[in-house]
């Protein structure tokens, strides 16, 4: 029996017309909501060398965690080795540096990979990191079929927003679908793509654009995987989403509710999915980093709490709360702890987890949900027209003609002008500004990491069998020339020779080319 704080008994949901757990899932995926399973409090971590982050992982597991979430550094995310000229100043700074299988072995040393789930936030080189993770597991006697977790592997939003691309869109989507095919066949516990609106919103989009661009990318992956020969119900249950929790409370809640309804109706009606799991929009949420202010940073604790509450009332499956000092630097341990405590307060003190979709049926919330759906529908129509009836081709066209980046930049500029003109108030920035004179205590990362990582990389390059590396890389380039060959097996072969991430990327670049964005303001 669940009761309110004052002892009033509570049902698991209220209202009879539309129920949670029923198609089209506007009110939630499950009728029992957070009563049967609280959202996962998955906090993102990574810094320095693989050994540094491995220490943090062990500490998290000792504290009772069962899920790991890996942040990679900028060179790793961009498919460049730590000794690449552009890596200077970036090694181990915003995440962990991974150049070869040796780093991945150190990153997960002493961790039973069949007992934890791991999330890896990486896109351009996702297939390479996935291959390294499989190779580490199999070296320790854990089969790939026993691995559970998520790899972000959402390349389309990189061209639209986050800009961490390597190859042009079409060969990149081939790598995504190769990974979807590979996991569908061999890794039933793995989520091969996390379709992400988070970065679209951070780059400046509106809530409706975040919703529409993200789901359009999802439809594009569905079409690509079906075109590669998969049945929609073979892979759709393993797709998941990642949204932003921004500051406009009811707009955000409407966005999450609309996302579930749109995904379910499109998957059923347009793509013919029949497995109910294929219709369910499962999502992770992170509070809006871009809403955090450098001025009076403690105010961000309040912003994060309200954003987190919107994600919970919107029915998120997992949540990362930002630390209050992240407008200034990577979070300190204390700031990260307050962020986690904020989730725990929402979960255990507010009662927000007691009843599923507690705002469902409120006229404004239902209207906002409908309005989000309507606005997203207009954007889908445009993308569908761009692609002449194909969402995949429409997304490619929108990337090529600058539609997505233009829409996002327009929205970002409109917002800044409104703030600048005082039509929007940002507390502590353009109003209520007294009290911003305290210097915050910030985390800084020294240069030792870079030197250490360069030595490790040089040693691996020296100790490995160079002929085996060259043979594996040549085989990978040959496979890349044949569009029907799944590239996961030759990438796994290459990482096992201790070929570097940069070398594997280069072997693919000779066939795929390199993407260079047309700079448009």
């Amino acid at each position: 029996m669940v009761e309110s704080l004052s002892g009033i008994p509570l049902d698991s949901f209220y209202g009879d017309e539309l129920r949670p757990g029923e198609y089209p899932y506007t009110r939630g995926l499950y009728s029992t909501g957070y009563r049967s399973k609280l959202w996962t409090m998955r906090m993102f971590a990574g810094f320095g060398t693989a050994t540094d982050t491995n220490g943090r992982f062990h500490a998290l597991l000792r504290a009772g965690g069962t899920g790991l979430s890996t942040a990679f550094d900028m060179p790793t995310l961009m498919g460049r080795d730590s000794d690449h000229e552009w890596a200077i100043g970036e090694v181990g700074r915003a995440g962990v540096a991974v150049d070869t299988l040796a780093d991945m072995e150190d990153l997960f040393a002493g961790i039973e990979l069949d007992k934890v789930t791991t999330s890896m936030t990486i896109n351009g080189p996702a297939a390479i990191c996935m291959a390294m993770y499989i190779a580490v597991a199999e070296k320790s006697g854990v089969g790939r079929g026993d691995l559970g977790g998520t790899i972000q592997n959402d390349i389309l939003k990189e061209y639209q927003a986050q800009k961490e691309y390597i190859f042009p869109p079409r060969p990149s989507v081939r790598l995504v679908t190769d990974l979807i095919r590979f996991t569908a066949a061999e890794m039933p516990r793995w989520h091969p793509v996390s379709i992400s609106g988070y970065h679209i919103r951070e780059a400046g989009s509106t809530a409706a654009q975040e919703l529409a661009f993200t789901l359009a990318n999802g439809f594009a992956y569905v079409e690509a995987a079906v075109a590669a020969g998969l049945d929609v119900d073979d892979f759709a249950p393993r797709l998941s989403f990642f949204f932003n929790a921004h500051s406009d409370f009811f707009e955000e809640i409407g966005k999450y509710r609309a996302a579930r309804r749109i995904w379910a109706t499109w998957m059923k009606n347009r793509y013919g999915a029949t497995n109910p799991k294929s219709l369910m929009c499962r999502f992770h949420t992170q509070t809006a980093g871009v809403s955090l202010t450098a001025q009076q940073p403690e105010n961000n604790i309040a912003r994060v709490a309200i954003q987190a509450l919107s994600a919970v009332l919107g029915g998120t499956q997992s949540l990362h709360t930002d630390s209050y000092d992240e407008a200034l630097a990577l979070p300190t341990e204390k700031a990260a702890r307050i962020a986690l405590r904020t989730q725990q307060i929402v979960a255990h003190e507010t009662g927000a987890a007691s009843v599923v979709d507690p705002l469902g049926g409120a006229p404004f919330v239902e209207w906002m949900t409908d309005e989000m759906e309507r606005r997203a529908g207009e954007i889908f129509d445009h993308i569908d027209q761009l692609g002449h009836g194909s969402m995949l081709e429409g997304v490619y066209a929108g990337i090529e003609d600058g539609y997505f980046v233009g829409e996002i930049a327009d929205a970002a500029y409109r917002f800044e002008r409104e703030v600048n003109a005082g039509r929007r108030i940002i507390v502590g920035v353009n109003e209520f500004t007294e009290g911003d004179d305290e210097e915050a205590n910030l985390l800084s990362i020294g240069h030792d990491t870079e030197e250490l990582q360069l030595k490790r990389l040089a040693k691996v390059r020296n100790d490995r069998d160079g002929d085996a590396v060259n043979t594996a890389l040549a085989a990978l380039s040959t496979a890349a020339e044949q569009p029907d060959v799944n590239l996961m097996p030759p990438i796994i072969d290459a990482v096992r020779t201790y070929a570097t991430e940069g070398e594997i990327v280069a072997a693919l670049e000779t066939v795929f080319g390199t993407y260079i964005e047309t700079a448009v303001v």
Partner: protein
Amino acid sequence: MSDPCCEAESPIRVVLAKLGLDGHDRGLKVVARTLRDAGMEVIYLGLRQSTDSIVAACEQEDADVIGLSMHNAGHLTLVPRMVQAVDQAGLDVPVVIGGIVPAHDVPTLIEFGAAAVIGPGASAEEVVSAVEAAVARPTAAR
């Protein structure tokens, strides 16, 4: 239109770029539109630029000032390299930094030769006047 007779009143020509791997371009795009709306000529190079490509653009475009946007904590490494590259090319072009720079690093960047550091939350007017101060003249209105 600027007055062709009068060099001092021609629009300020500003090269805007992201140096290295950092892909956060929201702020730089907003700055580009802000400076353009204030009457400056904006040469927007965008992402993944090197010190060489930025210097080359300055020479080619006869730029008055460089604006660099930094969001990945690489400023202490990259800013001195940029200033050095400009000096080595024999250019007299100030470098203005924007983005996420902790307050205690600002004096260091000025010491390294940055003309100004514009922090998060700066208003459009503050951005425009920092660029005007760096080139020591107002831009001509278009």
